[in-house]
């Protein structure tokens, strides 16, 4: 699992870690029932304080992305992919809103953006 | 404490060895007159003091040079363990010397008066050197080894003049002086004095440990 925390990302560190684990789960990189590295292993590998890792794991557990068995470790939950997709879609929607708002100032319309998306789609398919 | 006892062993055993060597040398030089040797040892006092104080100088100088006490402070050791070990060794060495001399005296056939005098001198020297060491440690832990050395050397030098002064002023009455000394020493109640000396010694041990701590 590849987790990189960015100094440019204004989100709190624990959230960055949690988000990246969520992404790995959503994309299938981490499969259901797969065992996560222990909090200490994670902390040592990433060189991030265990308090932060603990908090990330705790949040993930509260949101039902992972579950913990005492003495055995933390495991990826059998997450509802649909739910993840819906969450990501919501994230995308917000980002697109921001994008459009920025575009407005430069005279870039929503239609311009739709055109760009179509072009990209064609290029990818071709 | 046992570990510290083991640590300081070599200083005291070394000085004991030196003492025995020097005494043997003296014995040879004076052509086997044990009486004279013992007399020299006792009235000089320097042997017993040296053997009590010598290791003190040696070990404390070593500790000062290496900042040994700073090193030991990290270890699970009480001050009492360290100081207690030193005091125990000095007591042991002192007791062995004095005991040895008393043993030799008891087996000898010298005149009663001389025996009494020698016995007393042995005990006096033994007691004084014990207390000298105890006070030394209190001072060393109080003002530091280097300052202590300066003070002691000054005192010893000054003390060196005392016999000379005594000789100069009392030379005519030397026989009287010897008689007075004999009377004085004969009258000492050692069953009382020795325990007191021991108690003062132990008291100084605790004081030294307390001062050493911070």
């Amino acid at each position, binding site marked *: 699992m590849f987790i990189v925390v960015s100094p440019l990302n*204004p989100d709190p560190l624990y959230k960055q870690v949690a988000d990246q684990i969520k992404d790995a789960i959503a994309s299938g990189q981490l499969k259901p029932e797969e065992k996560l590295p222990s909090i*200490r292993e994670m902390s040592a590998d990433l060189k991030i304080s*265990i*308090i932060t890792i603990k908090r990330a794991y705790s949040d993930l557990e509260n949101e039902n992305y992972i579950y913990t068995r005492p003495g055995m470790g933390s495991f990826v939950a059998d997450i509802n992919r649909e739910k993840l997709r819906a969450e990501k879609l919501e994230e995308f929607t917000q980002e697109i809103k921001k994008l459009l708002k920025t575009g407005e100032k430069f005279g870039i319309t929503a239609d311009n953006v739709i055109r760009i998306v179509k072009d990209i789609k064609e290029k990818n398919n071709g | 404490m046992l*570990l510290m006892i083991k640590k300081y062993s070599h200083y005291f055993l070394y000085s004991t060895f030196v003492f025995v060597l020097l005494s043997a040398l003296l014995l040879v030089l004076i052509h086997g007159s044990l009486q004279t040797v013992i007399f020299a040892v006792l009235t000089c006092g320097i042997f017993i003091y040296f053997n009590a104080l010598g290791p003190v100088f040696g070990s404390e100088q070593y500790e000062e040079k*290496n900042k040994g006490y700073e090193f030991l*402070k990290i270890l699970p*050791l009480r001050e009492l363990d360290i100081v207690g070990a030193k005091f125990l060794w000095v007591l042991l060495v002192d007791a062995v010397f004095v005991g040895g001399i008393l043993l030799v005296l008891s087996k000898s056939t010298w005149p009663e008066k001389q025996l009494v005098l020698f016995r007393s001198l042995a005990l006096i020297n033994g007691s004084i050197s014990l207390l000298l060491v105890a006070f030394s440690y209190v001072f060393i832990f109080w003002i530091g080894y280097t300052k202590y050395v300066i003070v002691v050397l000054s005192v010893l030098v000054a003390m060196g003049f005392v016999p000379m002064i005594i000789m100069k002023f009392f030379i005519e009455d030397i026989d009287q002086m010897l008689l007075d000394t004999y009377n004085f020493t004969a009258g000492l109640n050692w069953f009382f004095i020795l325990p007191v000396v021991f108690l003062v010694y132990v008291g100084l041990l605790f004081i030294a440990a307390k001062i050493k701590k911070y």
Partner: protein
Amino acid sequence: MDKILELKNVTKKYRGFILDNVSLSLFPGFIIGIIGPNGAGKTTTIKIIMDMVKADKGNIQVFGKEHVKNIKEIKNRIGYVGEEQNFYMDKTVAWTGKFVSRFYNRWDTNMFENLISKFTISRSKKIKELSKGMKVKLSLALALSHDPELIILDEPTAGLDPVVRRELLELLRKIPENGDKSVIISSHITDDIARTADIVNFIIDGRIVLSAPKDDLLDQWKRIHYQEGALDPLMVKTLINRKEHILGNSGITDRFPRIKDSLAEGINEGKIRIENVTLDDILIAYVKER
């Protein structure tokens, strides 16, 4: 979980300096960093914990026990690396290891030998032949080889070259890996602490002015670069260390998560930029405030 260490209202008066009502708690499995300028009281605090200096007032408990009364037992469970490393100079590394081993209940000879060889310290070398860096490593080897529950390091990187310094910090970070060991590190080099600590304590002028998880601090303190007018004037007033410049202004905030949303628009429009700060920046901000 029981606290491994607790200092309550510890005070120590020196001529010209007071360690004033210092309180500190440590739970097992964490690395605590104590940062502060030189002379702030870091070493004094640590020496009080090690009973090398006597506190005038205050309550100290280590491993849940009364401090001074049980100091021998407590020291058996503490590994200590001081600012200076004192050893008997004419003795060898091997002798030193053997000497020290006898004082501890849980000495692990294999561990000591492994650490010594990992640190490339020759067993037969005399202490006087060792460099400063090697002496620090030897101290650490001795400190770790008796299975201590608490490891205390006072300015461990002082006098070390950058390579050795990095190695040491790497090593230290790994210590609490099994969750049963805790570490206290003090340093005036904030970068050391930033690399290793879970919880950070700032000590300035004999007082602990801040105690918080390191990542929390780094999440809450950010530097905001903003164009003139892009920030609400009231907010500008709250910024610390404000700098104004033709090309743009900047200031440090200590409550970023709370104001993050109000900055979102400005960020989107490119008029506001957020930058992370270092522990040094935070410490300096505290020092300046006094």
